[in-house]
């Protein structure tokens, strides 16, 4: 009985459209999730940890909706299908009835969700996943699926089943599903779940609660693996034990309990009011007479244009409304709303870490969904809706009415097409409504014109998708085939999967164009030209498909495709309406469309391949390998250095181009004379008239942009030569935005470094990946030298690494823009309706030269004789003063403590958010992103002052990086980033007090452990490190700890000394010089602590093993606490061992949780805080405090790298004696 009931359930569910849709969504999301994961990340994509994590993310996104959608069919269906009478009158028992429905629901939901594994596996097949076997990966997927997700599905099924059973309303089921979805996300965010993109500091209580009730057990899972190393994450499976086990059992029990309650409460009878409605209607039918009697009279039908038009509009309305009124559409709409609301709220309520929030601008809201969520979401669901619409008449069995009516094919076909187009319009309109509404709630200003542009930029590609799918369905024998083909093509279009099949070029990615991101500074301008080019191509191609689709329009029963093809163009000779479609006009349109798509396609190809120099990734690899084979003969040939650059640079932002004339002074800085000079030029820039005085061009290689000059006379050491050339570039958006080379109205940024000539063999072109080198038959690259080896190699003198020069330019741009380059502004004038600027540096600067032009306003201030300038978008003035304050403070501090600033001016430019940088420092020039710098809401006083912090950091690089130019060896980045972090910290402390910095310390602390946990390489000691989590985060913690021990003045003195001894043109510094300088300013007893932070890897685990308190009277209390210290030392080669030296740490007694006190000023909640010694075998001590202690904490303010934080805080127990 049960078995046959279940079999029936299966048949019923598997025939529903949601089944197919669910499968598609799961497979797609599974694949998509993996596609978007970086294979370069440290934890292997196919490893057990990442697989479990991915499965959890999928479950969180999909399961509530999946179960919700099936619940409708599982239980509400009887009412909808009006077969309740039939069911309830069969001998089926209540138990069987409920159980079969519930089991069916669980089974179908589980099955459909499991199909995500297919998507994941297929996607893994196409990515470089590292050395993990298939069986291992499969089990890595199945294990979390069985342990985590299936019980979750059971629980959600029970909940939604109960809702459906008692409400008998689909809408109630959906609402509860959405609530579950949102609630889980909310809890996940506030419990700091790694599932969320930006987890916040976890609330421990909430985390406890969630680990109990988490339907997927993800909270306990993540707790279990929190401190796993990459190796563990890649090999070890989580275990069903502890909290996870309790949670799993609890979840299953709860679902059974809910089901049991359903059984008890559910009345297995018909609701009373539902009886006899039909017979009543029958009585009315016979007794009532209509008020007005109409008389049937034949009406002559029309067949003209008017009839066609009316039929078209009517049919269009009906098609659209019929789609709208479906349950699936409603569910998708709810889903869309949920996705948007969560995305936009997240965007408007958090900008970056430490609680910063943005100004709720339209650009900000769009940033969250316009370029990724919107196109993918609509495309995916459009595939489904096209299928529904294309087969609606057949499926509803209305086709024979429609096809036998005199309505023209053109009305029917285009009604479908237009109705389809209304679907993306609907989604976009809803997106605009939600986004603008949220903006208003968050107090932002709504830019309607920007929102309206979505119909163009996001709507038109959807038109193409609709046309493509409609065409596919018109030639497809059935809905399933049509949908499968459409789905595959769409996946090729919107993912990078096609690249794996050799379809990498944009011309293969139907309906798409290079990423379109919006910035207030440049609008969509960076790639809108490519959008326009591509969309013309896609639209004309769509026209071809619409015409074909119309030509093959299926009218009638069983008209085979071959017949439809046969008759497509023949007016009036087809059979039964087939082939009546086109006529001569159609044929003409077809010809025009084909020609147009050919033309526009060629235009795209020309712009991409010729103008933008497109290379497929394979071509690029081949090119680089070929370069190396051809030119590595020059690898050891000495080259001259550029010591002076003079240019005339004309920027034409409206035309996306520039024109440059340059004069380079070259000097032979070696002890040998030179006979040849190899000049390497970039392929994207058009070079002309490259000439070197006293040298003859002996070889020019256009493929690689190489010029080999033979010197007429040997260039003796110290000799100078002039090199001249002109360079120009025309840029388009066909390869997407170039982050270091963007010429567009509103903002242009040409980073000269990569695009100006190189001398000698260009190591940047070399392939670095060992596997690629093997493929190309290139020898292995020699391993990088260690710091000590490198020092030996050059005998301590890294001067050859220097690339410094004097720079002078005459820079011009459009009349409405300001142009900026390094150096002092000598002169400024207007000519021919263009702005001209003459810049010249006071002395040599690092060769990191940029030309910037923008529609800027400028604010300036003189500090210590230096002009500080902030260039900003006219409407982004809110943070300008604060930025200037931060610059002033930094300049003052650094001038005083590190040495005098080299230039006479320091300029800070706002740059578009889509440039992909938050802050970037070049000599005399700082770039700060529109997003993090100028659109941060400074009125939010809860937030950490990231604007000040970032500005201070980038200003500090004028000393650390562009003042002290470190040697290019291991640890070189420490002298740039760690010292900038230090400067940032002392400046924050100066402005906001040391409590304020604790908050940042806590963040850096976490960032270090996260980075460490996610790193694929063994941690190196700081002085050799270049990894970001080390040079920034560990560096910050280390420098702050050293500052607190050695004192700010001692550190500054060391840094001043370092600068004095190693700034250009003196010998560049290494981290060994930093350590030496630090030791010089302090006494020998501090050497171990310097070594500990900079040369060793030591990780603490301090803990409070017991704590109690006694009341002493007159509100004094005695606290007894026992402490223990565990320290782990690593050797940088992957070996670790415990060490047992005593350590000192802060111990605090509080009347509140110390986490609450981070960033709070000197607080009465701190009863006592002092440094204490902690031993590895443990030690105890007693304190007397004036106030009731609620918390005792060791290292409460994150001064140590303590990997286990939950044993640092203890609630003391009351001891009576």
């Amino acid at each position, binding site marked *: 009985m049960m078995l046959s009931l279940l079999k029936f359930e299966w048949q019923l569910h598997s025939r529903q459209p949601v089944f197919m849709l669910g499968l598609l969504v799961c497979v797609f999301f599974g694949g998509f999730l993996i596609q978007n994961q970086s294979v370069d990340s440290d934890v292997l994509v196919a490893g057990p940890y990442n697989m479990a994590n991915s499965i959890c993310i999928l479950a969180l996104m999909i399961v509530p909706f999946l179960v919700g959608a099936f619940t409708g069919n599982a239980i509400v269906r009887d009412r909808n299908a009006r077969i309740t009478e039939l069911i309830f009158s069969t001998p089926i028992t209540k138990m069987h009835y409920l159980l079969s429905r519930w089991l069916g629901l669980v089974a179908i939901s589980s099955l459909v969700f499991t199909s995500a594994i297919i998507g994941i596996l297929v996607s893994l097949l196409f990515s470089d996943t590292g050395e993990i076997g298939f069986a291992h990966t499969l089990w890595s997927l199945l294990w979390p699926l069985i342990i985590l997700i299936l019980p979750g599905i059971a629980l959600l099924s029970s909940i939604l089943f109960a809702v459906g059973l008692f409400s008998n309303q689909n809408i109630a089921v959906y609402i509860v599903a959405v609530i579950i979805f949102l609630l889980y996300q909310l809890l996940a965010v506030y419990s700091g779940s790694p599932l969320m993109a930006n987890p916040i500091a976890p609330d421990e209580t909430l985390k406890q609660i969630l680990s109990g009730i988490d339907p997927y057990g993800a909270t306990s899972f993540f707790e279990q693996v929190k401190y796993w190393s990459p190796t563990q994450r890649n090999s070890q499976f989580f275990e069903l034990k502890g909290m996870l086990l309790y949670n799993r059992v609890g979840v299953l029990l709860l679902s059974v309990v809910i089901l049991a309650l359903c059984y008890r409460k559910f009345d297995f009878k018909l609701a009373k009011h539902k009886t006899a409605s039909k017979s009543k209607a029958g009585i009315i039918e016979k007794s009532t007479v209509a008020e007005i009697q109409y008389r049937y009279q034949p009406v002559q039908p029309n*067949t003209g244009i008017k009839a066609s038009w009316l039929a078209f509009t009517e049919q269009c309305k009906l098609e659209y409304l019929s789609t709208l009124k479906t349950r699936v559409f409603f569910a998708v709409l709810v889903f869309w709303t949920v996705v948007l609301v969560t995305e936009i709220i997240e965007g408007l309520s958090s900008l970056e870490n430490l609680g910063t929030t943005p100004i709720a601008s339209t650009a900000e809201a769009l940033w969250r969904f316009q370029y990724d969520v919107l196109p993918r979401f609509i495309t995916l669901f459009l595939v489904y809706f096209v299928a529904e619409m294309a087969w609606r008449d057949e499926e509803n069995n209305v086709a024979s*009415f429609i096809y036998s009516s005199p309505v023209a094919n053109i009305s029917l076909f285009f009604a479908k097409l237009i109705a389809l187009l209304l679907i993306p319009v609907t989604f976009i309109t809803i997106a605009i409504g939600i986004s603008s509404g949220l903006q208003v709630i968050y107090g932002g200003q709504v830019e309607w014109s920007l929102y309206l542009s979505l119909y163009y930029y996001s709507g038109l590609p959807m038109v193409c998708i609709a046309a493509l799918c409609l065409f596919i369905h018109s030639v497809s024998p059935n809905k399933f085939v049509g949908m499968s083909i459409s789905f595959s093509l769409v996946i090729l279009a919107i993912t990078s999967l096609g690249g794996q099949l050799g379809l990498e070029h944009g011309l293969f990615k139907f309906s798409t164009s290079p990423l379109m991101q919006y910035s207030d500074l440049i609008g969509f301008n960076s790639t809108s030209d490519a959008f326009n080019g591509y969309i013309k191509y896609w639209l004309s191609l769509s026209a071809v498909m619409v015409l074909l689709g119309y030509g093959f329009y299926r009218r009638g029963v069983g008209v085979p495709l071959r017949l439809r093809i046969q008759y497509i163009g023949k007016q009036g000779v087809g059979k039964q309406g087939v082939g009546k479609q086109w006529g001569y006009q159609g044929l003409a349109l077809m010809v025009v469309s084909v020609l147009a798509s050919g033309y526009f396609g060629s235009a795209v190809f020309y712009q991409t391949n010729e103008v933008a120099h497109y290379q497929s990734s394979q071509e690029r690899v081949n090119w680089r390998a070929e370069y190396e084979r051809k030119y590595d003969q020059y690898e050891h040939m000495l080259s001259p250095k550029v010591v002076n650059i003079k240019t005339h640079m004309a920027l034409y932002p409206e035309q996306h181009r520039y024109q440059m004339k340059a004069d380079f002074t070259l000097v032979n800085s070696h002890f040998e004379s030179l006979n040849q000079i190899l000049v390497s030029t970039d392929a994207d820039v058009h070079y002309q008239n490259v000439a070197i005085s006293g040298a003859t061009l002996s070889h020019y290689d256009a493929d690689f942009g190489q010029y080999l000059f033979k010197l007429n006379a040997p260039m003796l050491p110290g000799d100078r030569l002039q090199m001249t050339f002109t360079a120009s570039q025309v840029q388009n958006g066909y390869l997407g935005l170039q982050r270091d080379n963007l010429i567009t109205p509103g903002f242009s940024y040409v980073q000269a470094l990569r695009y100006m000539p190189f001398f000698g063999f260009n190591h940047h072109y070399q392939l670095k990946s060992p596997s690629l080198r093997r493929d190309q038959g290139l020898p292995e690259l020699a391993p990088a030298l260690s710091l000590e080896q490198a020092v030996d190699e050059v005998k301590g003198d890294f001067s050859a690494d220097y690339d410094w020069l004097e720079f002078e330019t005459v820079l011009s741009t459009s009349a409405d823009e300001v142009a900026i380059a390094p150096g002092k502004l000598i002169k400024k004038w207007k000519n021919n309706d263009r702005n001209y600027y003459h810049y010249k540096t006071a002395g040599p600067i690092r060769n990191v030269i940029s030309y910037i032009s923008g529609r800027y306003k400028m604010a300036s201030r003189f500090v210590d004789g230096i002009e500080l300038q902030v260039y900003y978008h006219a409407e982004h003035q809110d943070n300008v003063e604060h930025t200037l304050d931060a610059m002033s403070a930094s300049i003052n501090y650094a001038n005083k403590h590190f040495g005098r600033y080299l230039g006479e001016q320091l300029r800070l430019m706002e740059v578009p958010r889509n440039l992909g940088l938050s802050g970037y420092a070049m000599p005399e020039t700082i770039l700060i992103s529109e997003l993090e710098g100028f659109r941060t809401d400074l009125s939010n006083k809860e937030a950490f002052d990231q604007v000040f912090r970032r500005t201070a950091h980038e200003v500090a690089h004028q000393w650390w990086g562009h003042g002290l130019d470190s040697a290019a060896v291991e640890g070189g980045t420490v002298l740039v980033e760690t010292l900038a972090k230090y400067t940032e910290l002392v400046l924050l402390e100066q402005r906001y007090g040391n409590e304020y910095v604790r908050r940042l310390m806590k963040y850096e602390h976490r960032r270090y452990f996260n980075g460490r946990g996610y790193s694929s390489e063994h941690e190196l000691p700081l002085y050799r490190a270049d990894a970001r989590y080390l040079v920034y985060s560990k560096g910050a913690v280390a420098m702050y700890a050293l500052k607190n021990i050695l004192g700010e003045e001692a550190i500054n003195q060391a840094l001043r000394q370092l600068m004095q001894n190693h700034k250009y043109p003196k010998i560049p510094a290494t981290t060994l010089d930093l350590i030496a300088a630090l030791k010089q300013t302090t006494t020998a007893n501090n050497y171990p602590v310097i070594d500990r932070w900079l040369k060793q890897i030591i990780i603490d685990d301090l803990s409070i093993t017991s704590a109690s308190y006694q009341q002493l009277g007159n509100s004094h209390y005695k606290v007894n606490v026992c402490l223990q210290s565990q320290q782990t030392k690593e050797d940088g080669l992957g070996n670790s061992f415990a060490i047992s030296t005593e350590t000192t740490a802060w111990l605090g007694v509080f009347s509140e949780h110390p986490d609450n006190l981070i960033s709070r000023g000197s607080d009465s909640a701190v009863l006592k805080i002092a440094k204490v010694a902690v031993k590895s075998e443990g030690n105890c001590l007693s304190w007397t405090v004036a106030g009731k202690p609620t918390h005792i904490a060791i290292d409460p303010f994150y001064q140590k790298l303590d990997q286990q934080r939950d044993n640092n805080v203890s609630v003391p127990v009351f001891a009576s004696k």
Partner: protein
Amino acid sequence: MLMISNLNKTYDNGVKALVDINLTIKQGMFGLLGPNGAGKSTLMRTLATLQSPDSGEILFNGHNIQHDPQAVRSHLGYLPQEFGVYPKISAFNLLNHFAILKGLTDKVTRLEQVNALLQQTNLYQHRKKAVSSFSGGMKQRFGIAQALLGTPKLVIVDEPTAGLDPEERNRFHNVLADISENTIVILSTHIVEDVSNLCPDMAIMAAGSIIKQGPPQKLLAQLAGSIWRKHVNKQEISEYQQQFKVISQRLVAGKVQLHVLSENCPAAGFEPVQADLEDLYFSAINGIAARGN
């Protein structure tokens, strides 16, 4: 006038649905009788321009409907044997929608006709309810209403009275009879009574072919005097079937009443009966069966 000549259709699975069909149908009701699977629906669909024949020609008032389907569609009322409706659309809206598709562009006359048809089919009270929620009979009446939209000159109704109660069926027959005064109405059915009551002309179809065609009276005249009846016990049936051309058998008061086709009195105990359409029908299709054997 509808002229069908040499119409053939074989489906991909080899079933011969239409075999050399020749028919000329004039104004008035035309009954098409035949058992299930005889090819009636294929013929209906072909006439309704939904399907193309493999060969042959259909002329409607001189227009070749394969070449110019619009000519017939403008004046076609078609009620297929099975049909569905769009979900969640009211009877009024759906009928109005079909009226627009039929080309009724003038709003006033269109609405007048839609309402009249709803009244005529007794759906007026339910016009605001979704057709998808209708009972079988109501839905069938809706189908009839839509077939009468516009000015139908060719009405094709395929098994129209299935699911209707006797009163509804009578009403429907009256409507058909009314419009058949200046319209071709093709009534496909397997209910002999419907044809005998309504149709001045008819054809009997079996296995894709027309096996009898003509006015019922004329066809019946051919059978005059050759139908014999006898009441027998159930056990004797097979014996009779072997000896005589039994064309039908039916239970009457516990005994089986056999009709036998024979020029003369087949045997003792048989009595002559006046041939009716049912005898004609059964003799025709059983005759085919015998020929097949």
